[in-house]
């Protein structure tokens, strides 16, 4: 019985032992955010603990309830930020620094979440392709029959894009668009964004749609550079509603135990240093407009972004997922 108490005591102490820390639940892969957190740790002496999960953070927070160790949720995709907010898992942050650094349309109107970077969903097309492409709608054009690759249609990035199309074109248009897109696919949707570029490189398909920074990351990777070199990047819909943008963002958990440290980390991420680390290391578009872009993405020039409020687009997600299921795009 003593043994039991010993273990119990150990667990109890263990869970309370670290004081100067901040706990992050992250949807972003560890190797993408490590440089940012390392810098913050060095500057402040506050330890950043991360747990990476591809799925399930909402469920985890719900289960853990008021004792959740999570301070910050680090996430990509507006839908997930929206989910967190709707499930009452966040608290508002009133920080002058955040409000100054991040433009209005990239943060929640109730200050529940804050965008940190934005990313464009761009079209990549093989340099060998005989065709030209300008808009997302062209992916469904019959000239690309048997030439299109996409990742799982139910991945948040695809759902985000399709939701934006649903908003701009209407639900019926989206249905026929997806039907045609499916018939253009050379293989069933699979792999991640990098895999699509690899598939184009190897000649399996000609055209796909990916987040812009993946291409930049690949251009700076010894192995994957040749994949990225095989494609041209197109910012779609320049003469219509603009290129679909999504964000990565951060939110303060409702029951954050290290609230002060958490807000410090949020402010750091929106500060010029944090933002330039983001843009140089990850090649994303900083939300803080005073920051220079990374060398790679600056060469791609300026483009017209879709300015529709992301929360508006996110509201189409449920119906879009239903349509994807009904049309059985993934199988």
């Amino acid at each position, binding site marked *: 019985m003593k043994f039991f108490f010993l273990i119990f005591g150990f667990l109890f102490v263990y869970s309370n032992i670290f004081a100067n820390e901040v706990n992050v639940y992250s949807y972003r892969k560890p190797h993408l955010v490590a440089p940012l957190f390392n810098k913050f740790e060095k500057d402040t002496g506050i330890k950043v603990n991360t747990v990476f999960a591809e799925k399930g953070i909402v469920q985890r927070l719900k289960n853990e309830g008021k004792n959740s160790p999570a301070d910050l949720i680090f996430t990509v995709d507006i839908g997930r930020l929206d989910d967190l907010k709707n499930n009452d898992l966040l608290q508002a942050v009133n920080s002058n620094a955040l409000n100054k650094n991040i433009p209005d349309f990239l943060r929640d109107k109730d200050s529940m979440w804050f965008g940190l970077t934005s990313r464009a969903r761009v079209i990549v097309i093989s340099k060998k392709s005989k065709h030209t492409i300008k808009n997302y709608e062209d992916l469904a054009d019959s000239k690309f029959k048997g030439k299109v690759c996409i990742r799982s249609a139910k991945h948040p990035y695809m759902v985000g894009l399709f939701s934006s199309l649903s908003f701009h074109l209407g639900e019926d248009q989206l249905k026929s668009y997806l039907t045609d897109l499916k018939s253009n696919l050379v293989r069933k949707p699979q792999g991640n964004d990098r895999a699509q570029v690899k598939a184009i490189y190897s*000649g399996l398909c000609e055209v796909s749609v990916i987040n812009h920074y993946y291409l930049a990351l690949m251009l700076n990777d010894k192995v994957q550079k040749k994949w990225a070199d095989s494609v041209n990047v197109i910012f779609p819909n320049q003469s219509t509603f603009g290129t679909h943008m999504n964000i990565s963002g951060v939110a303060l958990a409702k029951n954050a135990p290290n609230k002060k440290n958490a807000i410090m980390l949020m402010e750091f991420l929106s500060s010029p240093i944090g933002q330039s680390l983001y843009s140089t290391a990850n090649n994303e578009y900083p939300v803080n407009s005073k920051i220079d872009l990374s060398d790679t993405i600056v060469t791609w020039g300026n483009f017209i972004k879709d300015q529709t409020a992301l929360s508006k687009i996110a509201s189409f997600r449920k119906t879009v997922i239903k349509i994807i299921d009904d049309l059985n795009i993934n199988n």
Partner: protein
Amino acid sequence: MNKAFYLEPNKYFISITVFASFLVALPILSIFMNLYTSGQGLFNFFDLSTIKIYLKTTFFLLLGVGFLVLLLGVSTAWFVTMTNFPFVKFFEWSLLLPLAFPSYIVAFTYTDLLDYSGPIQTFLRSYFEWSSYNDYYFPNLRSLGGAIIMMSLVLYPYVYLLARTAFLEQSVNTLEISKNLGKSPMQSFFDVSLPFARPAIVLGLSLALMESLNDFGTVEFFAVPTLTQGIYDLWIGSGDYASGTRLASIMFIFVFILYFMERAGRAKIEIYQTVSSRLSKLPKYTLEGWKKNIVFILCLIPLFFGFLIPFIFLLYLSFTYFDYGYTSNFISAMFNTFYLSFLSAIIICIVGVMVVYSKRVIRLNKIVRFLINISSMGYAIPGAVLAVGIIIPINFFENSFDNLMQKVLGLNTGLFVSGTIFILIFGYLVRFLIIPSGQIESSLKKIPPTVDMFSRSVGYSSFTVMKKFHFPLIKGALITSFLLVFVDCVKELPITLLLRPFNFETLSTNVYLFASDEMYGHASLGALTIVLIGIIPVIIMTKLISKSRSKYEHS
């Protein structure tokens, strides 16, 4: 049985055993409770056609894997045991090697190998001067068929192992008679060997099918919509507990069928083993000419595709990408994996011994027996589903305990289990407890209870009985099960992925994260390490089999 047989019940021992089996049964009970209490009107966002897809895929997955593992496992086991052909001694143990590969690793290795830009297709294109995808047909690995083949290649050893053990134990007399009656090898296989080995084959088959139902890495990676994948998506992905639970209740039909299949197989083996004659060496058929070449090739196929090819390719990848693979993250993941698996294996073996002893020496009431039986079901339930069954009651308990402590003592105890590696150990305990308890129980059965009774009646203390008679017999089983549990913990993916605490990656989660990001080179060193560790049980089983064979040869 009279009362004197039982040991004087040590109250700590009993309470710890009851507590442990209650804990282990808890997640399984919590899943059942969820099934029972979940409400109606569920298919709001989730209609029947989607369920049908999950159901159909799972059914065909199990059917396909079942067919292939039987084909590969039974045939090779019979050839290796009953016939002589070149390198038969080598095949005896090497046919177990594919067991070292977790299916998610074999899946990603083949994906990279067979990819359009991988070495095989590139070679084919340059050789036949094809220029594009449209010039030829190449099957898509990321499909149901691909998943079936991947899983069968690494799961057939279950059938092989058990079928071979059964063939080794079959009645020599019957075989001799059948041979003397002029029956061909084929006839005596169908008339004598197969009926005798059927329970063992069923057992092997059910274990292989449980593994494929449990698989999460491969189906997620190949985007094959199985029930396990669907439940995971609904529970974890969209938080739709109601639909996820509906799906889980459908899946439990599969779980129960496999569980009872396995139980039945085991029960029958015990009956047969007691009547089988173990008198002389098995009569072997010596194969000549083209027959021996064909058998040689048939045995080479599963070894070649299930182990050699993926192993060599992994080796190649690990060397090529060594700088990407051998990082400080890799080292810390390896360290984490080792100490977590080591600690888990020790704890699981201790609990295993306690449960087995409670059953043998203590008079238990019905409720405790029920808990112990339930707690042995963990291995049949897919890890991803089990993880959800663990986290719900644990978080509930932690939060209630915290409330209580706040009220009574003003203390904030927080989530003192779920943020630590203890929740992982607990998850492994629920899933792998059957390994030590099964092993130890079967070796203890070799001592008739009358020995216990006699020794007790001549005045030995219960502890002395344990030390003198039981321990020497269970020592081997204990070491074996420690190693098996250790390796299973190293390979485990879904529970680790879902329950790991802050800043904690293991080899398997690292491999999965890199592979799911299309970075096979980065993943290869970790994968290779897991496979190398996975060879340990192969060595153990080889030793066990050769031991049981030497029994015949020496008699």
